[in-house]
């Protein structure tokens, strides 16, 4: 199953949850937030939401900014 994660195409296991994906991409990251197909997914829903073929996922965290 292919999906777009932070702008790059990735091969993901079918049925993978957002939570599992976050663990894979940003295991040590703190204060992470996720947008799935341009909608924010609250942390409490991460384990229940499964990534689908062709999804566009952004995983972000605080970064230096003005």
């Amino acid at each position, binding site marked *: 199953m292919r999906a777009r994660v932070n702008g790059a195409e990735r091969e993901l296991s079918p049925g993978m949850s957002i939570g599992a994906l976050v663990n894979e991409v940003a295991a*040590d990251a703190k*204060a992470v937030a996720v947008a799935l197909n341009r909608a924010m997914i609250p942390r409490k829903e991460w384990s229940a939401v499964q990534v689908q073929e062709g999804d566009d996922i*952004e995983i*972000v965290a*605080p*970064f*230096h900014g*003005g």
Partner: protein
Amino acid sequence: MSDETLQIGELELHSRVLLGSAMYPSTQVMLDCVAASGTEMVTVALRRVSPGAKGESLYELLHRAGVHILPNTAGCYTAEDAVLTAQLGREAIGTELVKLEVIADDQTLLPDAAGLLQAAEELVRDGFVVLPYTNDDPVLARRLEDIGCAAIMPLAAPIGSGLGVRNPHNLSLIKERASVPVIVDAGLGTASDVTIVLELGCDGVLLNSAVARAGDPVMMAQAMRAAAAAGAAAFRARRMPRKYHAEASTPAKGTPWR
């Protein structure tokens, strides 16, 4: 709001300086500037996580420094992007605060007034404490306040220009008509710029480039802190009236040989 505090929504800050977290020569210099400026609120952006990033995250460092973290929507060119970025910031950091930026174009980095109003309205409705980065336009400022923004953040000059206050008259008008704090954001270059803003009666400043890109950022952070205190005190002290002609301060009476 008392003379010594800056009230943003429910928050009471004891410093009139807000600081950005970008462009410092190192993370340690950034933390030293946070301490030296006396700030209690630091802005951050939301960006893609870098896999395998090592060391303490910016979030942890700022959290440990004991400051409020103000997520921005930098890099957003539409109201839709700004609203989504604000939602990501709230989820990531657990704060209702957002420094709302809807930028018109890359060359000017000026706010897009229409997009800003639209995003502000949606975010206020969704419970955010919205601090909009806006033009120094008194009418737009009033509209943003009417929508329910918690502060107004007019620019002094274009972002990163360090040109200082281009239109003090407009900043005065914005302040005169506002009942929420006016925090001047963008374009300040040095300590005297900060003093001018506070002397005009504005409530605070948000600084980033002026500190981070100074030759000695930590010394500049100290200078900014002093400048804000001086400007706020001068405003409260009510400056003397301006006069067209000279007026001797030493009395003429009793002058010898006259």
